[in-house]
């Protein structure tokens, strides 16, 4: 139904009132991210009136107990603080639905409950299913939703599903998950959430590239020497994370999804339009163009894996990866990975993309740095010592979101001395107002039917295809590439430096 009052009120697609069903409602994601995100949307006046939330989980709880637990966490984590009056109204629309994920009768009761809500609305209503449970329940939840018939779009009303990562653990499991999802929901109603894409700075990559005329002419192998994507964390396996992490590793946990998504935004061609498929068509072309490291030798030459050993981070002693709680003492899971990625397109031929992710590194930072070629060896570059450092454009994703550009300048004085200087833009400095949480934007987009910032099936599968070759070489080949180590609190193993050194490159110092 058309709402004329929305036109021109906001420069975004219009979210529609719906019932949000969250599977895994007693989990951390629901408490710390989803409920506070929806609350903040209500505070901003952006949440459509009439949105109802049903938490679906196994534990016995009343609505009141559920709300009270959510309120307690919201008070601690909500970006905009906690207002009792607004919470009271918001919480009235939150309900709890107890059921095992495998129990078909629980879904029948859910269907009745949804119908009841729809009747109150005067007929039918939109439905958004958010699968925030552990991945082993994805199949059961999707199949039971289909069995209960609540996956179907009713005339003029949609049913959509949001799936949290991991989208499988390799290509076959991702394909299986996609098949199960697509048996229950159409691809256009499927929203695979990658919260990195909801971050302001990730969204700003496209704006930076395509709303500024100065960058795009330089954005190619004629002007760019190399690109680095770094995600460093100064944490280990705190909070019992070891069990999950040891089954995933840096490559599956971060590279397959977040970092390859960032890479595709940096490397994609300009889309024909800003529609979801317009953008995603270009991103998937990048993933399809990744040169495959499909032999153990190629993997050894282009990928470094490592685990941290005991060291110091932020002045604290930390144990090695294999000594961490819930980690196998003989684990062969990488806590650090560095890759040389080649994108075989006309634009990027010969430009290496270096991607690294590691735990227990010196600081927390995610950034993309574009390293431009040095000027010709004439004039200043012909002088002794040459030009000190090329131009580098840095897009800081988190924390301290912003953009900086390094250039060379003359030091004042009678002699000719040059030093690199930095032009720096900080979101927090220029825009005092805090950015919304990624989940706020993504939840609103899913209610509005805008899938631009969500991963499409083919993107996920292409990313797994690339990752699977590497995993195969690591875990299934007769001569697997070595597992290196690095001291916790350092920037990774020497082998990672050598990976770039072979091409005369160095990791950017963060």
């Amino acid at each position, binding site marked *: 139904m058309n709402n004329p009052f*929305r036109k021109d009120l906001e*420069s975004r697609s219009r979210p*529609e*009132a719906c019932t949000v069903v969250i599977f895994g409602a007693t989990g951390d994601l629901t408490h710390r991210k989803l409920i506070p995100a929806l609350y903040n949307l209500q505070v901003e006046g952006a949440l459509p009136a009439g949105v109802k939330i049903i938490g679906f989980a196994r534990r016995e709880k009343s609505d009141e107990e559920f709300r009270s637990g959510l309120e307690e966490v919201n008070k601690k984590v909500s970006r905009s603080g906690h207002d009792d009056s607004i919470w009271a109204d918001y919480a009235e629309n939150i309900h709890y639905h107890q059921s095992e994920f495998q129990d078909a009768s629980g879904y029948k009761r859910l269907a009745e409950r949804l119908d009841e809500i729809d009747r109150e609305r005067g007929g039918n209503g939109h439905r958004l299913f958010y699968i925030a449970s552990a991945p082993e329940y994805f199949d059961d939840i999707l199949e039971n939703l289909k069995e209960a018939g609540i996956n179907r779009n009713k005339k003029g009303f949609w049913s959509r599903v949001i799936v949290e990562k991991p989208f499988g653990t390799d290509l076959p499991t991702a394909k299986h998950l996609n098949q199960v999802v697509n048996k229950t929901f159409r691809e256009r109603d499927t929203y695979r959430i990658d919260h990195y894409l909801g971050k302001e700075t990730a969204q700003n990559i496209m704006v930076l590239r395509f709303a500024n005329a100065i960058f795009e002419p330089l954005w190619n192998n004629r002007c760019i020497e190399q690109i680095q994507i770094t995600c460093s964390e100064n944490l280990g396996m705190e909070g019992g994370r070891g069990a999950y992490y040891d089954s995933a590793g840096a490559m599956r946990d971060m590279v397959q999804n977040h970092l390859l998504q960032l890479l595709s935004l940096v490397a994609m061609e300009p889309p024909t339009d800003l529609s979801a498929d317009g953008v995603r068509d270009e991103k998937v072309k990048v993933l399809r163009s990744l040169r495959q490291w499909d032999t153990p030798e190629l993997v050894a030459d282009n990928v470094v894996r490592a685990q941290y050993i005991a060291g110091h981070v932020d002045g604290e002693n930390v144990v090695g990866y294999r000594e961490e709680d819930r980690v196998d003492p003989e684990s062969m899971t990488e806590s650090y990975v560095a890759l040389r990625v080649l994108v075989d397109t006309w634009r990027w031929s010969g430009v290496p993309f270096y991607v690294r992710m590691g735990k227990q590194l010196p600081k927390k930072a995610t950034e993309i740095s574009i390293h431009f070629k040095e000027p010709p060896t004439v004039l200043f570059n012909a002088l002794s010592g040459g030009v000190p450092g090329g131009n580098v454009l840095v897009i800081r994703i988190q924390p301290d979101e912003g953009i900086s550009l390094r250039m060379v300048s003359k030091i004042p004085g009678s002699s000719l001395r040059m030093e690199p200087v930095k032009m720096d833009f900080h979101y927090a400095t220029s825009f005092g107002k805090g950015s919304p949480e990624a989940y706020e934007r993504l939840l609103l987009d899913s209610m509005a039917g805008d899938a631009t910032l969500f991963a499409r099936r083919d993107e996920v599968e292409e990313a797994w295809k690339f990752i699977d070759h590497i995993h195969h070489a690591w875990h299934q080949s007769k001569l697997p590439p070595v597992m290196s180590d690095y001291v916790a609190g350092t920037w990774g193993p020497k082998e990672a430096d050598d990976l770039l050194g072979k091409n005369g490159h160095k990791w950017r110092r963060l």
Partner: protein
Amino acid sequence: MSDYADNDYAMALGKEVAIADVDKELRLLWEEDKASTNASLINLAVYSEQKGAIIKNSERVQIITREHACRAILIGIDRNNPDASIRAWITAHCHLSHGRKSVCCEQIAFQLTGKSTGRLRNTVFSHLNSDLPLVFWWQGELSSLFSERLYSLIDRFIFDSSEWANPLESYGCIGEAMQSEQSLLPMDIEWTRSSQIRMAVAGLFDDPMAANALQHMNELRVVVHPKHRMAGLQLVAWVIQRTGWKQSKELPLGSDNGDIYHYETTEGSDVVVTIVTDPLSAPVGIMEFKSANCEVRVTRDAGSPYIRQELHAGSHQIERCTPSNSDDSADLVMNQLSRGGNNSLYRAVMPDFLELLGGELGCGCEVEDV
């Protein structure tokens, strides 16, 4: 200026400097404090002809710079004073950004007396930060200084139509300026006052039952504070512009405490539209739609930080509260600056609004050299 001691100016505006030394003194200010970051995304000029307003405006800029890094240029002018003079002060407003970095914005304050005769342009605007847009906040009635020579320098022009004694004439001047300078973006604080109300109304009409009932409404009632009749008219203009409702009787049918209009919806329902003024109301206190089966109501009590949204359609009921705009003008300007964009909705609504306002538009201002 005689109402204020020099000390008041120094306390509020910082260090008094010679006009010729403003840039040099600003540089010194930053050299003395290496720990702070100088941030600026816009030039924000705040202009007032009211005595002492420059001091209050410095406080307002202190608030605005929390979210909008700018170079602020405060301009106070006493045009009735026979002596021509100009004084300048510099200071910086600093805030801790995310609890870490001290982010500061420069402020230059100019107090002029006497006729402008070009001094405003020559002195004040030579201190703009180059390449950054100029947002000009004009306080009070438009005067003869609002001329092409001034507005041709401006990117966004902020004013508050609730402060105007003769809105028709002032809107006429704004209209002429917009025709002359296509890139000039007008931003009416009165329009921003109702932004959360509009959001709340739009939010309720997302509901299919409310949306279905929209073209079957019989009544639209808006209650405003007497100072904010413009906001009421703008809200009604917004509704008729968005819904396509047509005027069905002669306009306007005014009464002592409000305005009454008659419209016909696209489905043929007659709608009585009333704008009621109430001295106890918030700037916009109530916006209420009624049909036989559906009531949509957005209300705000005077001074309340909340807006109440209500939808009643048989057994289908929605009631919730959302935060409201603050009534403070600095907060409203911050809100406008946050929105950015080209204010297309306001521009679209203007013709209907001016029709509701009635009468012939015309800029009667005498023009003076700025």
